[in-house]
């Protein structure tokens, strides 16, 4: 997977944070700590490579 952007994202509801990421050119909402989710796994690997998830607005 090619991740070009990742940013924390939350709506106005409590406990609603996920990651809005651009992966392989497509914008998607990646759940945090979702066991077995391949995009969450890829984001973790992307961060381990030295990249940073932007803070939410």
């Amino acid at each position, binding site marked *: 997977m090619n991740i070009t952007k990742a940013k924390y994202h939350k709506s106005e509801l409590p406990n609603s944070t996920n990651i809005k990421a651009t992966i392989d050119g497509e914008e998607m909402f990646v759940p945090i700590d979702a*066991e*077995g989710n391949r995009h969450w796994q890829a984001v973790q690997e992307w961060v381990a490579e030295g990249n940073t998830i932007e803070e939410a607005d």
Partner: protein
Amino acid sequence: MSNARKLADNLPTEGQLGARSFIINGGMEISQRGISSTSSGYVSLDRWYVNQSGASTTFSQETNSNPSETGGLQKYARLNVSSSSDYCHIRQPIEDVTTVPAGTVTLSFYAKGTAPAGGLYTYGNQHFGSGGSSDVDWTPVLITSTLTSDWVRYTAQITVPSLDGKTVGAGSYFLLDIGQHSNNASTAFDLNITGVMLEEGSQASPFEHEPTSVTLAKAQRYFYKMTNNKTSWLYAVTTSHGSGLRRRSIHLPVTMRTTPTATISITHTGGTSGVDGGVWIGPDSVGVYVNSINAETDYAYTSALTADAEL
């Protein structure tokens, strides 16, 4: 003799009589993402992943006008490779590495076209998931050196390594690849394939037909796509003009393998929209929202949604 009689006469009479195949969408019927793509990844036929590995490919769902050639199956997959590379293949990860038992399993399918450089291989590994044991490759098998312009049913026996002593974590799977192996020639090839079965034991049984609705439900455990459903209105949860909130939970038709990644298209006048995270999404439903909408004059509905829980 009727086709039903022929089918009945060829069914196995011992061993597992139903749900024999570990493969989903082996008849290449379901293509929620679209019927053709030149990209890598999960791009067309459900559950089938294209590993380009540097090759140029078109992966598509095709229709056979003579389904008697393929055991009654009308649909097939075509991996048309104009410039190949080593390890260019299609693959299917089978959920839970323990699903495919140690010992001999048999792969079978109909195929025609032209074979990759070095022949058509099957290979793969046991992936033990997050925190699990290291991956174990199983021994690659040369299925055939050549394909022809006629449909032929091929079989191959695979030796699945023992699972004894292994630690299995979340997201484990048994990986089955079909395509070019380690030969690094760029020679074009054209794999047309359908009726894929992977079953326990050393014998191939006839392709196990099932209703399309059953295959779709199996596939939707991993991927769901909703399109042009303009009845999915988002409803007001506050009427405050300044911070008017619209919400809806999209209930998925099948409980997914894990909490999915979602893409969304919400049509709305005013405000900002997206997918809720945290406790507002799970394997059964996806929460979507529009914030800061004028509750008296604005409207919002979900026009497209995908939920992806693929391996």
